[in-house]
């Protein structure tokens, strides 16, 4: 039963069912750092008893770039763009969080038009991220087709981003005080095209995966996370909202124009992988709803407030919170009054979300691990920073 490469350790006290009194050893297997289901270089050391998971131990740091240290030598204009490389699927929202923190320190008033563009871009990013997650998640549990469908929609958003921001993945479109340039003349038309296209396709998503009995059996009751544990482990974003925790920063601490918008904070209470899945699909519809409210009424005016060429944050501490596609992203800046931050801490949602994996995986089956990992939506550069 055991191959030589598997490391055996302590004698297990729990006799596996149907073992006929035989004593089995624990088996330790390594998932990653190169594994298709981890979507990056995450290394999990898993202790198994038969097929049952006893412990999951993450080993990080394979792509740690020490972004926090790097930022200490970059100016308040420059450090914003390093954060694109953290959570590359919400790079726009990461940039946004950093800008909010700098603007808070300098008390810059962002023009109405810039606020609308920022929110539109944030929501497009959220859709692109959730759509990619949907395809990857379905692929993890064995359905290959959704992955290709999701790229069809994501490609349209990437094209919109490319036109207005110049890049497809790490947009670097934010500047303190607004956005870097006005949107492309085609922007409104193409976003409208995308929305009408996506509206018809999202029902297809439900038909193909959500209502699929095989998918439901793979995810329902798997990796159950209670509300109390979600709060204690600092889990945020759709992963926590699947456990019934109200944690949407857009609702709790509205920034930009979110307080004036009509949208719903999606909450599910089951706490299992399927609930987390449903939250994300419902959020896609909410994001579309937000875009529809704004896209045809982008106000006239400046897209950027006038700011000094060299920014100096006053001595003190600044903290901004923003809702990325994965959860709460926090930027904590300690400034000594100079042109560079004295210390920066990025509170990345992925890091806290990963910490709960061991807790929800214990007692589950090894085959279900990808369903648990998939619905936590881990992005490894975001965890490592």
């Amino acid at each position, binding site marked *: 039963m055991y191959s030589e490469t598997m490391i055996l350790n302590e004698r297990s006290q729990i006799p596996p069912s149907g073992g006929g009194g035989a004593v089995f050893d624990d088996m330790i297997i390594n998932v990653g750092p190169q594994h298709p289901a981890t979507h990056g270089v995450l290394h999990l050391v898993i202790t198994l008893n038969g097929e049952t998971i006893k412990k999951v131990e993450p080993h990080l740091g394979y792509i740690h770039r020490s972004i*926090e240290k790097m930022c200490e030598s970059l100016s308040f204009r420059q450090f914003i763009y390093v954060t694109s490389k953290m959570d590359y699927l919400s790079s726009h929202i990461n940039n946004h969080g950093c800008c909010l923190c700098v603007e808070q320190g300098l008390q810059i008033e962002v023009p109405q038009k810039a606020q609308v563009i920022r929110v539109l871009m944030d929501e497009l990013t959220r859709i692109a991220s959730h759509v990619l997650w949907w395809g990857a998640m379905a692929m993890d549990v064995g359905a290959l087709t959704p992955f290709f469908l999701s790229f069809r929609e994501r490609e349209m958003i990437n094209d919109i981003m490319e036109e207005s921001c110049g890049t497809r993945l790490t947009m670097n479109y934010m500047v303190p005080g607004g956005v870097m340039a006005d949107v492309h003349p085609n922007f409104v038309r193409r976003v409208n095209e995308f929305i009408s296209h996506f509206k018809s396709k999202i029902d297809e998503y439900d038909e193909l995966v959500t209502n699929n009995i095989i998918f439901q059996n793979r995810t329902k009751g798997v990796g159950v996370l209670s509300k109390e*544990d979600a709060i204690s482990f600092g889990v*945020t974003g759709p992963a926590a909202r699947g456990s019934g925790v109200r944690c949407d920063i857009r609702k709790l601490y509205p920034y930009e124009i979110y307080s004036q918008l009509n949208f719903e904070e999606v909450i599910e209470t089951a706490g299992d992988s399927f609930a987390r899945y449903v939250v994300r699909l419902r959020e896609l519809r909410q994001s579309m709803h937000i875009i529809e409210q704004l896209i045809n009424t982008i106000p006239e005016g400046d897209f950027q407030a006038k700011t000094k060429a060299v920014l100096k944050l006053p001595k003190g501490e600044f*903290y901004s919170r923003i809702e990325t596609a994965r959860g*709460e992203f926090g930027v*904590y800046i300690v400034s000594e009054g100079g042109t560079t931050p004295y210390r920066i*801490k990025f509170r990345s949602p992925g*890091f806290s979300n990963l910490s709960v994996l061991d807790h929800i995986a214990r007692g589950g089956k090894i085959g279900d691990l990808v369903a648990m990992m998939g619905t936590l939506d881990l992005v490894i550069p975001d965890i490592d920073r």
Partner: protein
Amino acid sequence: MNKEEQKLKLQEQYPSATFDEIGQWLVMNISVADWLATAQALRTAGYDYMFCLTCVDFKTHFTMVYHLESTTERTPLVIKVQLERNNPEIETVSHIWRTAEFHEREVYELFGVNFLNHPDLRLLILPDGWEGKNPLRKDFEDNVNMIKL
């Protein structure tokens, strides 16, 4: 509950603590010796969500910064604990807020702060066998990988 009410309430409970109102949230400074008891009392008082845990190297001392929040009242509170730079030690709070376990491991390796009674204080991000130097300290020098601008 606004910032003033929060301050009055906490002042009554923790007479030895000092308060700053420099940022957007109330900052409470407490000593290392009081930290564990205060943390437990704050958790009982409803601060159930720790959304950030970090450390700042001020060259003369370290400051541990804890951002806490109650998920029912939503009035964030910042706790600061000053540590000696030579032998930084503080009690773990990973049994009170489970998220602290990973964050403390991160601070342990990047700053060299020793968390007493932590269940699993090992290297998390740095490679195995890494010794001595803690990368996020201000006096960290790496002539090979760091480019000074």
